[in-house]
């Protein structure tokens, strides 16, 4: 019999991930490794790893990796790409990382149209540090720092960072996807490939925001987490293409 899903060559073999059961990070890692393989850029890929649950993504992704200080992934990616424009650069970041402490770097690298791809894992919490409020935490959502639920009065509103950068001319491609089901995963992969292709074509900044389950901090089962993405999270953060400045095919 033939193996229908051969091991992605840019995913390390025989490592157990440290992620919690049902966590979205693992799925996105796999999609990235598949996409760089299919687009044949894996050998010249550098992935910037964030401070966040994905801090040791390098243990799983079988491409060159570099660690970034919390929030500075896009700055590191900028440095990489400016020094070696021939490389393929991914900045993998959490929502806290990219949209809180890294806000300035995100906004300005997008506005400059730096030619790399940001992958934003929006799990509506700070996973790594134990489930604190993230910029993307929903109103009323309970986290360890919003014990009675996020309120707009004290904590502000869920921040739509991808929508913000999507308005910038430097952004070639921006899409929001989810990974809570087979179809969603397929769409997510398509989106990643669109963004990666935009980078390969030198069109500028691209960003894929992924609504990603964090069952542990949401205090749900993995299945409930999927459902919550459909029923609640994606209502605040609707899926879809937010910017597409790729030249139209003729």
């Amino acid at each position, binding site marked *: 019999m033939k193996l229908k899903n051969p091991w992605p060559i840019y995913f390390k073999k025989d490592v157990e991930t440290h992620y919690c059961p049902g966590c979205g990070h693992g799925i996105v890692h796999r999609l990235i490794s598949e996409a760089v393989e299919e687009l044949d850029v894996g050998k010249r890929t550098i992935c910037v790893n964030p401070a966040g649950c994905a*801090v040791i993504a390098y243990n799983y992704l079988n491409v060159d990796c570099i660690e970034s200080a919390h929030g500075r992934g896009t700055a590191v990616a900028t440095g990489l790409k400016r020094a070696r424009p021939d490389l393929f650069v991914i900045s993998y970041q959490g929502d806290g990382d990219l949209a809180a402490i890294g806000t300035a770097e995100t906004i300005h690298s997008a506005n400059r149209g730096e030619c790399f791809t940001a992958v934003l894992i929006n799990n509506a919490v700070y996973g790594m540090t134990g489930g604190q409020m993230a910029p993307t935490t929903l109103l009323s959502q309970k986290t360890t720092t919003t014990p009675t639920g996020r309120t707009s009065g004290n904590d502000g509103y869920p921040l739509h960072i991808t929508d913000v950068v999507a308005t910038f001319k430097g952004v070639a491609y921006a899409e929001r996807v989810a990974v809570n089901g087979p179809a969603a995963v397929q769409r997510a992969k398509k989106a990643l490939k669109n963004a990666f292709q935009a980078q390969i074509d030198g069109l500028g900044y691209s960003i894929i925001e992924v609504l990603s389950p964090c069952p542990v901090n949401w205090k749900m089962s993995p299945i409930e987490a999927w459902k919550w993405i459909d029923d609640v999270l994606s209502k605040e953060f609707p899926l879809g293409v937010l910017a597409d400045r790729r030249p139209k095919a003729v």
Partner: protein
Amino acid sequence: MIVKILFAGSGGQGVISMGNVFAKAAMLDDYYVTHISSYGAAVRGGTANCTVCISDEEIASPVASSPDYIVALNKPSAQSFINRLDPGGQLLYNSDLIDSVPYRGDIDLFPVPANTAAKTLKNDKAANMILLGSLAKLTNIIKTESVHESINSLFEGKKKAAVSSVQAFDYGFSGFPFDNEKK
């Protein structure tokens, strides 16, 4: 006197609570006591452990590289921690989830059929308190009333949970040592 106990299991098994209850009871008995649990990336993937040190003088370090007692709630933790046990140390484990433990000639093994006991008590979540009762009996340093008080303060406001936890604790205490055919 200093006694070091490591509690280990998986995330949802109430490992940290066991440590907390026991440590606070030690405080009520006017011992010096420390409690420290694993945190951060180490707890991704669902393992959990904590260390409680109880002493009649100041405690230098809350960390126990070689504890005197290990309470293991599932097999992976028994396997990964057993080698840290001090020679002459005691391993207390949930024999319903741990069919066998790696061989070490220099330690004592105390199987506790905690899940079976919990079923008997019609309280699925009581395995940890049953084990704690057994530990209290085995270590024999903390007054049972202090543990009761500690359990009650942990479940402050949740009377029913408190009562059934105390009951489970007592069950583990009085039943110890359990007869265990698997041993």
